[in-house]
């Protein structure tokens, strides 16, 4: 016989004195004030089954790339309407990079000639912005989507549900980090005029020929090739290019210029983050499958708008639980330092929510220095995330951990019980609108969002119990 003990060491000692093997739990008190809510939620008769169904829905969902379309067509975005990352936000509370990205997008759409004239549009409500998450989309960093921007369209082959994400612009001075200088807008126009249409032709040709690009399959492979699919997407990007390149080249037969095809191949191949914008909607597609699972405490979204960090939970519908976004801890580009960094921003924490990114750090030793860590830290991080998750992802195996699956399905109750917060790999945007990227690092959600979500789950549980 072996025994598991949790609590007083003395009782474990007494078992060892009887030659019984003892596995001790390193228990600590839960987050302050959560004891009652924890008991209520954990003892809810719905919970165990609801959590199991929620996480299974995530694990069962796969994603294929079926199209590339302008946002106006893909999700019906209209002139003057924009999407942004994170929970809902007002212009007054928007951070520098969020404002910068919206200003650049307004200029891109021709609503203003000079981006600096755009704030009046947003202040007056003449131009509006809503969370990407409310429109079957996700956006990295500021995550701003304008009607003319092209988006990847991912589909769950079983249900036909779709999610969307814009095309990745590359690094440095880019709109998603809040930069809106003429060079940024020039690149975005090229993406709209050349990259989008050529990718559309190639994606459709592949889809109608050998079948759509299997985004889930690429994710599985890239995780075994040293990408954690959040801050490192090099293998994934090159595999995508491998799948699309023949059709892109064949596009010259459909009228694309050879020079444009070469430029597209150079742009995608030279942008190590290009696949991130496929990894993110693939994760959202999987997590959305669990939304609305009554009684489940599993997190279905973590997202930041540069001001607030918000989470959504399977058992609490579309409600956001928010707290102040934190500034990441990491390394800075050039002369930038912590004072230059904006609080955390972007929907990209959807990758961690699904079990990759920071949760798969162990598989990506090549980037541990970029995000300010060591290889042992990376192994420890992935192991630690198993403490707060419901499952191991059967497709996302980590070779160095003996092919253990990545930790998937963040459980609000376990976060509150252990105080272990989800680890997120992230880029850092400059605090001042127009700056662009200033660094990359590690960040966690503000702890209070988890007790807040737990309290809501507990209230719903009590209401169910009294109604029954």
């Amino acid at each position, binding site marked *: *016989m072996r025994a598991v003990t949790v609590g007083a060491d003395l009782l474990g000692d007494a078992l060892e*004195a009887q030659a019984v093997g003892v596995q001790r739990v390193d228990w600590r008190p839960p987050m302050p004030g959560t004891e009652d809510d924890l008991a209520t939620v954990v003892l809810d008769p719905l919970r165990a089954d609801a959590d199991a169904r929620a996480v299974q829905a995530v694990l069962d969902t796969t994603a294929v790339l079926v199209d590339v379309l302008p946002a106006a067509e893909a999700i019906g975005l209209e002139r003057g309407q924009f999407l942004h990352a994170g929970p809902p936000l007002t212009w007054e509370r928007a951070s520098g990079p969020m404002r910068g990205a919206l200003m650049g997008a307004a200029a891109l759409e021709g609503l203003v000639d000079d981006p600096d004239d755009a704030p009046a549009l947003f202040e007056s409500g003449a131009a509006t912005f809503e969370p990407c998450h409310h429109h079957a989309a996700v956006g990295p960093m500021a995550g701003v989507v304008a009607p003319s921007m092209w988006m990847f369209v991912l589909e769950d082959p079983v249900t036909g549900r779709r999610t969307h994400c814009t095309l990745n612009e590359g690094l440095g001075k880019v709109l998603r980090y809040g930069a809106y200088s003429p060079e940024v807008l020039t690149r975005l126009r090229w993406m709209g005029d050349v990259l989008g249409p050529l990718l559309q032709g190639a994606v459709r040709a592949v889809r109608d020929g050998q079948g759509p690009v299997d985004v889930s399959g690429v994710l599985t492979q890239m995780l075994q090739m040293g990408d954690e699919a959040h801050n490192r997407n090099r293998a994934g990007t090159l595999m995508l290019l491998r799948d699309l390149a023949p059709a892109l080249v064949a596009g010259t037969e459909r009228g694309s210029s050879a020079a444009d095809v070469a430029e597209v191949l150079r742009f995608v191949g030279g942008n190590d983050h290009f696949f991130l914008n496929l990894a993110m909607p693939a994760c959202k597609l999987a997590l959305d499958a669990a939304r609305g699972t009554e009684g489940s405490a599993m997190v279905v979204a973590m997202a930041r708008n540069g001001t607030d960090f918000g989470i959504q939970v399977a058992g609490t519908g579309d409600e956001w639980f928010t707290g102040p976004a934190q500034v990441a801890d990491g390394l800075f580009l050039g002369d930038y330092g912590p004072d230059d960094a904006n609080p955390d921003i972007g929907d990209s924490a959807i990758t961690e929510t699904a079990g990759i990114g920071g949760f798969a750090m162990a598989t990506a030793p090549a980037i541990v220095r970029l995000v300010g860590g060591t290889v042992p830290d990376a192994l420890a991080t992935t192991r630690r995330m198993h403490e707060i998750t419901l499952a191991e992802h059967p497709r996302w195996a980590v070779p160095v951990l003996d092919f253990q699956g990545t930790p998937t399905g963040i459980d609000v109750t376990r976060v509150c019980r252990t105080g272990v917060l989800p680890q997120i790999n992230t880029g850092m945007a400059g605090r001042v609108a127009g700056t662009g990227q200033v660094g990359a690092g590690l960040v966690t959600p503000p702890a209070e969002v988890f007790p807040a979500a737990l309290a809501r789950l507990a209230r719903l549980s009590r209401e169910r119990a009294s109604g029954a």
Partner: protein
Amino acid sequence: MTRPPHQHVEVRSAYADSVALLQVSRTVAALPGVAAAQVAMATPLNLDVLAGMGFEVPDDAGPNDMVVALRLVDGDPTTLEAAVAGVDAALRALRSARPAAAGAQAPPRTTASALRGADPGDPVLVSVPGASAAVEAADALAAGHDVMIFSDNVPLEHEVALKRAAAERGLLVMGPDCGTAVLDGVGLGFANVTRPGPVGVVAASGTGCQQLLALLDHAGVGVSWALGVGGRDLGRAVGGLATREALRRLDADPGVERIVLVSKPPDDEVAAALASYAATLGTPVQLALLGPGLPDLTAVAEQVLADLGVPVPQWPVAGEVHREVRGELLVGLFAGGTLAQETELLCRQAGVPHEVVDLGDDELTHGRAHPMIDPTLRLERLVGALEHPHTGVVQVDVVLGHGADPDPAATLVPALAEAARPVVVSLVGTAADPQDLLAQRTALARVAEVHLSNAGATRRAIGLLTGGAR
């Protein structure tokens, strides 16, 4: 030159369980230059204790903070430095005592995580504070494991929810409020070392169970299974859910020839339902439900022996009463709730004025260790009782076994030696218990009359008050 005494209070963001901190406090209090030391989590009860000791604790200290409070014999900074170093060393020693900390992998942080890959037969023993116990126990049930809840102060509705979930899965929830179990000879919680044998016990009472184990062991009869179902299991709210499962399991074990169900006074309907369930089992079930007019635990043990055809031995008594009776009151200071209740019933039956306290009661153990581990509370009460003019006889219990104080006589004997009143001790233990029953009995017998049978000890105490012979 003498320097004035000095107080030092600091709040740390750290956690250790109350028993471990008791050890740390004791270690630190024994350091040179330290007049008093209390290292404790800042629970409301501990804050009261600290205030009572004259320490001022910052208002922002919460139950998840550790308070280090020291009173030093002087204000010399080197004395303080040495004392704080002593605290650090004692806390470090707690951590290094855990073998898991040495490995590369961090130890599991929840029961769910500890159970990944565990054998389904492995039991889980939960002793975290009561408000958090259900959460860990629910992990055990979800993973298909039996669980014993040692924690005090577990809300009744948590117990009901857990036991309902367990009943659906054919799992057993042992406890709460019954800190004793023996699983195929292995003791969990407070448990005496017994030889293997034909008796299986289902106990809604921890010390009641231990009394039976001790008496049967003395008579040469072994107990392989003692399933502690919790003091409230036979109440109306829980409705005997765990008792039923425990009876079912013992009935299914061919090695069990006789089942004894011991409980504090149960709910009548629940008792009746269990009695009719017991009647359907193949193994005879002896009910030992304490109550007015019902047999005491010693009588139950004697009945079990008679049923098994084993002669009833003389229950051992050692030492003698040295002092004269001067008051009319029997004061009972018990670590064992059922032993306290048995004594209370016998006093009431005999019409003897009495004041019997269960020091293990949930209300007295908020945020501190059980009196079977921590003698402080009993020693305080003992001084009070001995000073009280109405006190005639003092009765205390000393319960041995795994999990209990490693040497209870060491603190009790000096306190009892001062007693100006006769003292009777119920010493519950078996010959193989780690404390060495014989050594404890010998030490206690120097200052008190020591009985193995609690009922015997109580009758003797009553006899002293009423002038009857021994």
